[in-house]
């Protein structure tokens, strides 16, 4: 790891000021950033430690009945907070499906949003080609081992996937990411926070230079009784998703009143399956209906050499997650 300078920021103003210096980056839990620094993938000159800024911590109720998760709330604390468990069990499940207990004790809500892809070609500087790490160098994954890669929304520049579980649940819950920066505060709808690779795969999010995530706001809870985060992976625990599904339903007896479905492991960002959601409204959760709706989620999928299995796996995972969310499994 390169030598770095370190500054502990006392408040948001000091953090923004310190981050305006060349080569500076914020550090929260550090679980992804330090790993990438050890591998030489990311090489900041200065780390601005935001973990002692009280204003970024804590979970508070919002006037509209929603919940505000401070950017520094640890993944384990968010997952086990009584209000999150009662009102947003989907989020609690997704958080608990990610990483290990030790890493969840370190990783923050804001940092989880900023996780880089786990594409092996991005992660290993021994591979010269990676448009995300070295723009213009090419994509080694397109002609390489791409079993873990995207089947939806990829580009000829990049087929990486977003590794976060938490973000898949937040996409389904229509969370809002609040940020502050040199040009003031703004609120970013979750669907607009992460981006597709297009011809700028080096950019994972729509955060602007120097901006700091302050909180994630959840709208009032609608889905606590019928939700499921289903994660399919190569081993039972402590592995990234091949495919994951965040399914949330509002039921009127046996009929779907509204549905939210987001997929992980299939795209450069959490992937909302809106056609599937719409196809379920007014329907019952019988298997034929679910299979028809699930097929809509992968229309236009462009699998790579090694990951065609994800197209059928995603559909089956959607069906199972909806059955479990609806209590018909």
């Amino acid at each position, binding site marked *: *790891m*390169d*030598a*770095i*300078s*370190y500054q*502990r920021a006392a408040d948001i103003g000091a953090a923004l000021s310190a981050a305006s210096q060349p080569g500076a980056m914020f*550090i929260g*839990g*550090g*679980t992804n950033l*330090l*790993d990438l*620094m*050890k*591998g030489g993938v990311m090489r900041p000159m200065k*780390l601005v*430690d935001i*973990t002692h800024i009280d204003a970024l911590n804590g979970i508070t109720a919002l006037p509209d009945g929603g919940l505000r998760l401070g950017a520094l709330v*640890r993944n*384990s604390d968010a*997952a*086990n907070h009584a209000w999150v*468990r*009662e009102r947003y*069990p989907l989020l*609690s*499940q997704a958080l*608990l*499906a990610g*990483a*290990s*207990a*030790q*890493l969840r*004790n*370190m990783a923050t809500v804001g940092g989880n949003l900023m996780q880089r892809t786990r594409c092996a070609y991005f992660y290993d500087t021994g591979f010269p080609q990676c448009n995300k790490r070295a723009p213009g160098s090419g994509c080694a994954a397109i002609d390489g081992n791409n079993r873990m890669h995207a089947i939806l929304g990829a580009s000829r520049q990049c087929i990486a996937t977003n590794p976060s579980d938490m973000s898949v649940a937040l996409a389904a819950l229509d969370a809002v990411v609040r940020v502050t920066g040199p040009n003031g505060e703004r609120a970013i709808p979750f669907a607009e926070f992460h981006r597709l690779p297009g011809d700028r795969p080096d950019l994972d999010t729509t955060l602007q230079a120097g901006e700091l995530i302050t909180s994630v706001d959840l709208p009032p809870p609608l889905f*606590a009784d019928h939700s499921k985060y289903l994660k399919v992976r190569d081993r*039972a*625990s*402590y592995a990234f998703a091949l495919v994951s599904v965040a399914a949330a339903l509002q039921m009127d007896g046996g009929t779907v009143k509204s549905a939210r479905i987001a997929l992980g492991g299939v795209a450069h960002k959490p992937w909302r399956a809106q056609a599937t959601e719409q196809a379920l409204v007014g329907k019952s959760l019988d298997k034929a209906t679910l299979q028809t709706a699930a097929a809509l989620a992968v229309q236009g999928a462009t699998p790579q050499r090694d990951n065609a299995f994800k197209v059928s796996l995603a559909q089956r995972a959607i069906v199972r997650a909806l059955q479990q969310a609806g209590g018909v499994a």
Partner: protein
Amino acid sequence: MSPADTHPHDVSDAAQKPSRRRFLQSAAAAAAVSAAPLAHAQQQSAATPAVAPPPAAVPMMPVKLTINGHPYELQVEARTTLLDALREYANLTGTKKGCDRGQCGACTVIVSGRRINSCLTLAVMHDGESVTTVEGLAPDGDTLAPIQRAFIEKDAFQCGYCTPGQLCSATALIDEYRKGDASAVTADVRFRPAQLSDDEIRERMSGNICRCGAYPNIVAAVKAVATGNA
């Protein structure tokens, strides 16, 4: 760090042979601006530095930690991980470096009551905090902690390299379960898990890899302590 330095048998001959660890300790001590409150590694070296400090050294930063109840004042580089601070600067080599990338759990310690991977955090980020390592689990020198006794009784290790991390992790796991924390295998996260089943233990210990494959006995040891049968 060479593989030999992280081998479980490296401790016994460390006193005789020069090693990178001892070099780092000496270099760090030479750069220290104040002596440690207790007679720990850096202080004793500060009086008689064994080797000259490296040229154009990276600036050192002071870090105060309470490790296993004892105050330490270390001088470390900003990039020094908590793991390296414990092993190379505080000379507490019970905490092991396995993958050094947050994947194996050998470096697990308890910081301010929470188990973390000490390889993926910087020592300077923990200035003023308290750390418990495997050396601090036993209440005194002659009495092992219940989880340590259970690991022996249940034969929960073979080579022992992952054991310090397993013990710290299991200690925190039992606290987390008693608080009512849920896990990925908890049937409904809206309620406390009904019991600490084998599945719950396996899930909650999944951040600690055991290459010898002592998992069934590790589960048995954790279960014995959690259910008061140790």
